[in-house]
């Protein structure tokens, strides 16, 4: 192995301050590549046969996609400090896809949510505690809703389960078996299609999500936390972001070491560095996501703290999060199928 580490990360994850700090601390050079979606990361790694990178940042639920083709190496838990990861997150990740057949492959790095963003001027009544996924499907919202196709069907499933219209064990049935998955998706999609007129824009990335509100005229929708927070902070304070009462959609991004990694030691060094409170704080300030490192919150700046309290006004907001479970093959395929059905309705 050499004195470099090939990091394949989300575009905004490893910014210069982190990179410099790591290089200074360890003397290992970071060779950074970036991607913009899980699909891209996954498929690039797959096409490369698991080679070429030493650290990668998959979302925890996409783990199974990697396991199938043996793209990741198992984590040696003795080589990094398990206690540096917030224990509850570390534990939760087990079920969400971080382990496979008894071995751990993914180490939580950060987490975030996808929840409600809305225009508090045109909808002054909406607020934390009462706001619901269902608000997007009300009849007075025609053409004003911005959503991501892939997640909106899930949030709708949670909502419909909550109001008892489509029972799905808080959407967990989607992952249970192909038949259950199909049943729930079918019902949810039909519900959505009936109200398709509400959709003003679909988005797939932050650029589109922002534009959906600024250019496409949407006034409510489901966005990533960063989008909502930046809309509020940079564009207009009327934009608010918070958790709906059914619980926000929570995601965890992790760090993994591809099976073809040639710099395993350096990879662990990098992982360990990312989990230091200082790096975690830097990370959160850089990106607006929440670090999974213990004590990272000590290093947050004010803006980030303010944003956090807007998004998660109380502990319940976090406790109530709905975490994306590990993906199964049928889930991926069926979700695509119903997304297409909804999109093309």
């Amino acid at each position, binding site marked *: 192995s050499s004195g470099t580490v090939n990091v394949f990360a989300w575009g905004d994850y490893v910014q210069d301050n982190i990179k410099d700090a790591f290089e200074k601390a360890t003397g290992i050079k970071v060779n950074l590549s970036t991607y913009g979606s899980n*699909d891209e990361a996954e498929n690039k790694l797959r096409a490369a046969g698991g080679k070429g990178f030493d650290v990668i940042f998959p979302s925890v639920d996409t783990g199974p*996609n990697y396991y199938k083709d043996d793209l990741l190496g198992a984590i040696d838990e003795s080589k990094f400090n398990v206690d540096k990861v917030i224990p509850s997150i570390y534990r939760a990740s*087990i079920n969400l896809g971080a382990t496979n057949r*008894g071995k751990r492959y993914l180490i939580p790095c950060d987490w975030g949510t996808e929840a409600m963003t809305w225009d508090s001027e045109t909808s002054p009544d909406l607020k934390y505690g009462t706001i619901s996924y269902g608000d997007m499907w009300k009849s007075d919202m025609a053409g004003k809703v911005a959503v991501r196709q892939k997640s909106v069907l899930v949030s709708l499933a949670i909502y419909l389960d909550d109001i008892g219209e489509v029972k799905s064990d808080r959407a967990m049935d989607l992952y249970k078996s192909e038949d259950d998955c199909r049943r729930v998706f079918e019902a949810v999609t039909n519900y959505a299609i009936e109200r398709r007129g509400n959709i003003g824009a679909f*988005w797939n990335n932050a650029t589109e999500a922002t534009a959906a509100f600024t*250019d496409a005229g949407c006034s409510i929708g489901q966005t990533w936390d960063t989008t909502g927070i930046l809309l509020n902070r940079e564009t207009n304070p009327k934009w608010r972001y918070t958790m709906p009462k059914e619980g926000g959609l929570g995601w965890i991004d992790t760090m993994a070491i591809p099976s073809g990694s040639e710099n395993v030691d350096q990879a662990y060094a990098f992982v360990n560095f990312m989990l230091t409170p200082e790096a975690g704080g830097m990370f959160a300030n850089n990106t607006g996501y929440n670090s999974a490192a213990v004590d990272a919150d000590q290093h947050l700046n004010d803006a980030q703290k303010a944003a956090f309290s807007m998004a998660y006004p109380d502990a319940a907001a976090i406790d109530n999060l709905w975490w994306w479970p590990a993906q199964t093959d049928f889930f991926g395929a069926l979700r*695509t*199928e119903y997304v297409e059905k909804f*999109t*093309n309705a």
Partner: protein
Amino acid sequence: MKALARTYGRTLSGTFVFLTAAWLLGMIVIPQLFMIERSLWVRQESTQLSLEIDRLYNEVSLLRFDAQGAADADKPAIEDKISGIEERIAELEAQEKAPQKVYTLSNYTRMSGLHFRIFVRTIVYAAMVTVLALVVCYPIAFAVAQVATPQAAAFLMLGLIIPYAINELLRVYAWLMILDYQGVLNTFLDWIGVTNLAAKQWIPFLESPAAVFVAMVYTYILFMVFPIYNTLETLDRNQLEAARDLGAPSWRIHWRVAIPHAKPGIAVGCIMTFMLSAGSYSVPQIMTRGTSGDWFSQTIYRQFFESNNWNAGAAYAFTLLVVCIVFIFLMMLVFRVGVRDIAR
């Protein structure tokens, strides 16, 4: 080979043949064969059983994790529980078969009704884009080739090329900014009083497929203009004058003289535009924000990258390729254009 060798000698001709062969085999055929091979099999496995095993493993992992923090007293009980589950796992794993690779045409045949509809719609849309591009570009090609002075023609050409200095993503994004509900065009209309953005009364350009058409025509203008220009440039101006002298009005001159002459160029332009639009991913993806329906290329993309079904994706892609090639031959038949004319 002999004909080639006579002019260029053995060494050079050999180099040409070698390079072409390397390109043909190493860069086109063999890589494509890999893909076609992929489209011909599926992986069969018993998902439900594997899921169950995975679930049990996760249970074990959880128990192990909890055991670390548990009181020492509880540990034996947990260990018992774990070993119980592990037995069950062993039992199930014995039943689990390795996934099997089965050769089949099912990737081709299993296209759902929806996908088929999208496919057909894409072909229709691509054809519409092609026709639109033709209508938009023909007058330009004609003007540059036949009407403008050579100097003016050079600058017009330059004007045509400049938009290609920027990346396709940006070009499309710019169109999005223009056509959006609160975009440049609607803002302008608001300003002259046609729409009222404050009251959310705007013209929803993006909701119609026309928005995609506008951006796509924009993106592929060059591919239509150049071939037509190239053929029209060779049209003897005397023919136009002869037609006029014989009393024909402008439209008839075009219909009877210029367009027939430009046919090979039109065919080539149409073929290229059709191909590119049928295979375009970023334009519909960015332009519509999903609100006006998918194009088939998006479906292919999702098969590959969201459904994780490369095999089906390869089959879809191959289908598209075949249909496009059929389209080419159809165009060549309709326009009576030979394979060779495409290069003109």
